[in-house]
């Protein structure tokens, strides 16, 4: 569904992505792991064109989308994103955060948008928090609203950029539960995470990145139990202790 072909990205002198290629199949949960600074987030941001690749192609359903003729806004409607720091709109309530994309981007009527938004909040277990502002919600609740906001637009896939890294430990579970449910429902997901339990139990495939390249990919068993590359072995060894 999403294909990344030999993507390079420089930030000034820094070569962040050095020719990354990968495929995300429909309905699969692809987990990307790797040390900080390995380019995981940049790769994810390339996939919805929040960052435009300097070289290489991003394809969605076979269409090359990093093309000047294609509006990045259209791509971002196809591929939702959930951020590490939630990025909920601080001046809007939980409900309005979900509604705004439906009315302004999808151009639905406000009644229809509200109906969908309430349904999405229900789905992430926050129907009763519809009128709360982000600052009045816990980190876990904010992240669930953010997931609802992404899902409301009915994307083909959702990208998760370290969705639990900014959370206090007691809130991580509820977010992972929502994500697990999504994966079980067959949502196509790309998840950058340090939650190895989630990668092992929910991930269909795991991809290990280091230094701007994909070092190794395989099933969770292959990556965590029988890693082939030395760098993967070291990383997995450190993480799983």
């Amino acid at each position, binding site marked *: 569904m999403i294909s990344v072909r030999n993507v390079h990205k420089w930030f000034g002198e820094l070569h962040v992505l050095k020719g990354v290629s990968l495929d995300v199949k429909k309905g699969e949960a692809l987990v990307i792991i790797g040390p900080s600074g390995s380019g995981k987030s940049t790769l994810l941001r390339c996939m919805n064109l929040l960052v435009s690749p300097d070289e290489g192609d991003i394809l969605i359903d076979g269409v090359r989308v990093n093309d000047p003729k294609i509006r990045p806004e259209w791509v*971002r409607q196809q591929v939702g994103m959930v951020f590490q720091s939630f990025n909920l*709109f601080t001046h809007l309530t939980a409900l309005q955060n979900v509604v705004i994309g439906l009315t302004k*981007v999808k151009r639905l009527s406000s009644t229809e948008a509200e109906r969908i938004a309430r349904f999405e909040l229900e789905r992430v277990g926050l129907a009763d928090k519809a009128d709360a502002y982000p600052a009045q919600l816990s980190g876990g609740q904010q992240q669930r609203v953010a997931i609802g906001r992404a899902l409301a637009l009915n994307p083909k896939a959702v990208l998760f950029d370290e969705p639990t890294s900014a959370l206090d430990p007691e809130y991580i579970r509820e977010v992972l539960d929502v994500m697990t449910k999504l994966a079980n429902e067959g949502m196509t997901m790309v998840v950058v995470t340090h939650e190895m339990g989630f990668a092992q139990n929910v991930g269909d495939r795991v991809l290990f990145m280091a230094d701007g390249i994909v070092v190794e990919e395989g099933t969770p068993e292959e990556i965590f139990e029988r890693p082939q590359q030395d760098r993967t072995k070291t990383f997995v060894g450190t993480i799983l202790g």
Partner: protein
Amino acid sequence: MGVRASARKVWKVLENRPLVRSTIAIASLLALAGLLLASLAEVKLISLGFMADNASFLLVPAITSLTATMVSFAVGIVGAIPMGLIRSFGPRLMKGGGRTALLTAPLYGCVTAYIEAIRGTPALVQIFLVAQVSGILFPGNPNIPFLGGVLALTLNTLGYQAEVFRAGFQSVSQTQIDGAKAIGMRPRQVFAHITLPQGTRLITLPLLNEWLSLFKASALLGIVAVSELNWAAGYLGNNRSHPIEAYIMVSAVYLAIIIPLGKAVGYWERRHRTPGLGTAEPTPAGRGARPRGLTL
């Protein structure tokens, strides 16, 4: 019962009645002002009769001052928003290079130069300059002093408001912009639905400040023959030989407009403050409650 105990008792009654507290405060202030006027009249420094007779004379000048301020402030906002945008996002656009940078650079330069020029020269000088130019361009037109005055105030507030908006836009964090882009908003929608409302909420009070400054600056227009409040004070003072009364009366009019307006906007801002947006969190003890220790 001791003084402290009774004071505590009074406070207990007043604690949750902000309206009663304000009424008491205003009444005391008015009483003090009345006392001051009465004593000045007693020593024959001022004549209360003169003040009573001429109070109505200030009505039209007050309207003139208010009109000049409101028109220039409103026109100023319309111009200041795009200028603030150029100021806040110009540097990034220029760094991007290409045609955008070529178009942005002169625009950014002009806006910056304009703001520096306005903020670096006295408002009075700006008003004189506009008055001189408009006097030469449209000799003998009776509306020119007022229109020129409004133009000068507009040019002045534009420079200040542009910086207020720049600060507002810059304080909207990149995470908010990313969030909006990620749900497929176009740049214009991101601005209209995220940057503008958040930025504006953050600058309500700075904008109020600018309005109040502008209103006071409108007093300078009297010098270029606009019949506003300060001019009216001069007129009453010179032609009727009661300058002290005239300036006291005009001061009272300014205060009567500025204080309630400031309070009203402050109250509105507290009522509409979004939790988590802006610097101050709403106080838990209720709207407008001051932290203890800072109580007046």
